[in-house]
C-alpha cells in the first residue's frame, strides 16, 4: 500500500532566478540546507539505485540461480523473449483489467465515502476511524479474510449468500471478481481520503449561492464540486493507478496467479524466485518499472496531474 500524500503547497519557492552574486546569508543557508538534506538523499539514492542498476544489469545477462557463477552477457535478448511471450501480454492484460476496473470502482465509491465523511457530523470521528480500518489492515490479512469469504472449499459465506453452486475461486472470472472486490475494499478509504482533501476546499459559500439560485444537488455536484476537485481527483487517480498496477499481495494469497489471473508483478516474482531465472525475471521487472513510469508520465504530462495541486493550508 502506498500512503503518498496530496502534495505540499507550492509555497516557499521564493526565488525564481538566483541573483548574480549570492549574498553571504543566502550562501550560508544553502550550505546548511545541503548538510541537512544530503544524508537523507544519499541514503535514498543508495538503497534504491543499487537494486535498480543491478536489475538492469542482470536483465542483460543469461543468469540462473541453478547455475551460479555462469552468467553470460546477451544484450537485449531477454527483452526479446519477454515481448514475444504470449504469457507476458496476457499478464499485462490481466494487470490492466484489474487496475482499470478496481480504480474506477474505487473512484465512485471513494467519492461517495468522501462525501459521507465530509457531511456526517454525528460521530464523525467514529465513522472516519472505522472507514480507515481497511486501509490500516495488513494487505495479507485482508486477502485471507476475503479469500476465506469467497472460497466455497473453505466454507466462505459469500457463495452461500449468492446461492452459487460452484466455487467462484475455481475459475478465472470468479477469481477476478473476488480479487477486484478485495482491492476495492482495501483501497477505497485511501481514495476517499485523497478526495476528501479536495472536497474540503470547495467553498461552501459557492454551493450555498448555487442552492439559492435553484441548482439541484446533482447540478451543484457536477458543475461546481467536481470541476473544483479536478486536481485532487487526478492526484488520487495517479496514486491509486500506480498502486493497483503493482498489485502483488492479494494475487499471491488468492491464487498465486493460477486460473489465469497472474499479473506482471506475479510473473516477475515467479520467474525470479521460483524458476530462479534471474536474467529473464529482471527483464520483466524492468519492463514493469518502465510501464509504471509511463503511466505516471501520462498522468502528469497528459492529464496535468500535479504532485503539488496547489492546495493551500490555512
Amino acid at each position: 500500500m502506498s500512503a503518498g500524500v496530496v502534495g505540499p503547497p507550492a509555497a516557499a519557492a521564493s526565488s525564481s532566478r538566483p541573483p548574480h552574486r549570492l549574498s553571504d546569508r543566502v550562501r550560508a543557508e544553502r550550505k546548511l540546507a545541503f548538510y541537512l538534506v544530503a544524508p537523507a538523499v544519499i541514503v535514498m539514492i543508495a538503497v534504491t539505485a543499487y537494486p535498480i542498476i543491478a536489475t538492469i544489469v542482470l536483465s542483460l545477462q543469461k543468469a540462473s540461480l541453478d547455475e551460479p557463477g555462469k552468467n553470460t552477457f546477451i544484450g537485449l535478448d531477454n527483452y526479446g523473449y519477454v515481448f514475444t511471450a504470449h504469457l507476458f501480454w496476457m499478464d499485462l492484460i490481466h494487470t490492466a483489467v484489474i487496475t482499470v476496473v478496481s480504480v474506477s470502482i474505487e473512484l465512485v465509491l471513494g467519492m461517495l465515502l468522501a462525501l459521507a465523511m465530509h457531511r456526517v457530523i454525528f460521530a464523525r470521528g467514529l465513522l472516519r476511524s472505522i472507514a480507515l480500518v481497511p486501509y490500516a489492515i495488513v494487505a495479507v490479512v485482508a486477502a485471507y479474510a476475503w479469500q476465506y469469504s469467497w472460497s466455497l472449499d473453505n466454507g466462505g459465506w459469500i457463495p452461500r449468500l449468492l446461492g452459487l453452486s460452484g466455487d467462484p475461486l475455481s475459475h478465472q472470472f470468479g477469481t477476478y471478481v473476488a480479487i477486484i472486490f478485495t482491492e476495492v475494499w482495501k483501497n477505497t478509504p485511501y481514495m476517499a481520503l485523497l478526495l476528501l482533501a479536495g472536497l474540503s476546499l470547495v467553498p461552501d459559500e459557492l454551493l450555498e449561492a448555487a442552492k439559492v439560485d435553484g441548482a439541484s444537488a446533482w447540478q451543484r455536484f457536477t458543475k461546481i464540486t467536481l470541476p473544483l476537485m479536478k486536481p485532487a481527483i487526478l492526484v488520487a487517480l495517479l496514486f491509486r493507478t500506480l498502486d493497483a498496477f503493482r498489485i502483488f499481495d492479494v494475487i499471491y494469497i488468492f491464487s498465486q496467479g493460477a486460473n489465469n489471473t497472474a499479473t506482471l508483478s506475479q510473473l516477475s516474482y515467479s520467474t525470479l524466485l521460483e524458476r530462479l531465472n534471474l536474467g529473464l525475471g529482471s527483464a520483466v521487472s524492468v519492463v514493469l518499472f518502465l510501464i509504471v513510469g509511463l503511466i505516471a508520465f501520462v498522468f502528469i504530462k497528459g492529464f496535468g496531474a500535479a504532485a503539488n495541486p496547489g492546495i493551500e493550508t490555512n
Partner: protein
Amino acid sequence: MRRVGAVLGGLAIAVALAACGSSGKGPVTVNWYVFPEPSGSFAKAAADCSAASGGKYKIAINFLSNASDQQRQTLVQRLAAGDPSIDILAMDVDWTAEFASAGWIRPWTGANAAAASKGVLPGPLKTATYNGRLWAAPINSNTEILWYRKDLVPTPPKTWGQMIDDAIKLAKEGKPHYIEEQGAKYEGLVVWFNSLVDSAGGGIIGPNGKVIVGPSTKVAAQIMKRLATTAAADPGLNTSQEGPGNNVFDAGNAAFEINYPFVWSGTQSTAPSIFKHMGYAPFPAVVPGTSPKVSIGGYNLGVSSHSQHPQLAFDAVKCLIAPQNQIRDAVKGGLAPVLASIYDEPSFEKAYPFHALIKAQLQDYGIRPQTPAYQDVTLAIQDTLQPASAIDPNNIVSKLRDEIKTALKGDSLL
C-alpha cells in the same frame, strides 16, 4: 618440592577434566526438513534414530509446507543462499537433477552409496541418480494404479482404449461412468502425460539431454484428448487433482480412477458403501500386450552441501531409511517403501493388498525427464497440454518439441 608437585598434579588433572568436559558437549542437532507427514511415522523415525545414535546426533524434524511446489521454493531459497542450518532435505523425485547440478546437495559415494542403494527397487533408485552418480537416498515411492467399481465393471479394462470404451458404454446405460484423472494445470498432469508416453514406448527427453518427442507423444495426446472430449470425462477434469478426483469417486459418480494408494484407506473411511465395490488393477496399457511404464513419484533424502555435519547427516539418513522405519512409514503412513524385501512382509501385505501391483510398477517403471531444467520443462508441458480437451493431436508433436527445446534453453516465460 612436594607442594609444587601437588599443585602441578592438580593443574594437570584440572586440564584433563576440562578437555573431557568440552568433548562431551552433547549430541549435535541434525536438521531434517520434510513435508508434514501426518501419521507421525517420520517423527518416530527421527526420535528412534536419535536414540540409536548413542548420543552422537539428534535429528530435529522441521516441517515444510504441504504443497510440493512450496517445499521446493522454501528449500531453494535457503540452499541458494548457503543456509548452513539445513542438513537433511526430503526431495521430491523430480528435483534430483536440478539440485545436483546447482551444487546444493552432496553426492553419495563409497560405503554410503552402497548402504543407500542396497535392496532398493530400480525405479526409486533411478530417481535418485543423475549423471551416473547417486545424489540422495530413496525413502519412499509412489505410483498410480487403476481403481474401479467392481459392481459396474466385472473385469477391469487392460488398455486405455478399452477403459474409455467401457466408460462410454456405462454412460449410455445411464450408470456412473466418469474416469477420474488429474487434468488440472499442475504436476499431476505431467505425470499422466509422461506415463502415457513412456507406456507408448517413447520418451520426452533422452539420456543425453536431447528432446526426443516423437510419435509416442501423439499417441499419448490422442488418448488424453479422447478422454477429455467423450462422455468418459468428468466435467471438472480441468481442475481435477488427486484429492478432489477421489472425492468424486467416493461420492459414487465415477466408475474408474487413476490415483495413488492413499485412496484405499481414504475411501475405506469416508465412503464404506463405495469401498465395498472398490477393486484395483494395474495402470492400463497404451499398447495392447505391452505392460505400461507408470511415472513414479516419492521422496529421496539428500544431504545439503552447506551442512556443517555432513558425515552425521549421512549416518542419520542411513538410519531413517532402515527397513523397520520404512515398514512403519508404509503401514501407518501409507507411503510405499523402496526396499524390495518389504513387499514380502506380512504386515505390509495386509495393509497393502495391491502390493504386487505397486512392486511391479516400481520394477518396470516410468520416470519423468531428469534434467536440471525440469521446473521449466514441466511448466512448458503443462502449458501445451492444458486443457486436455483443446489438444490438437496433429500438431502436438512439433508444438511440444519446440516448447521443451525453448524451456531447456531457459528463454521462455512460463
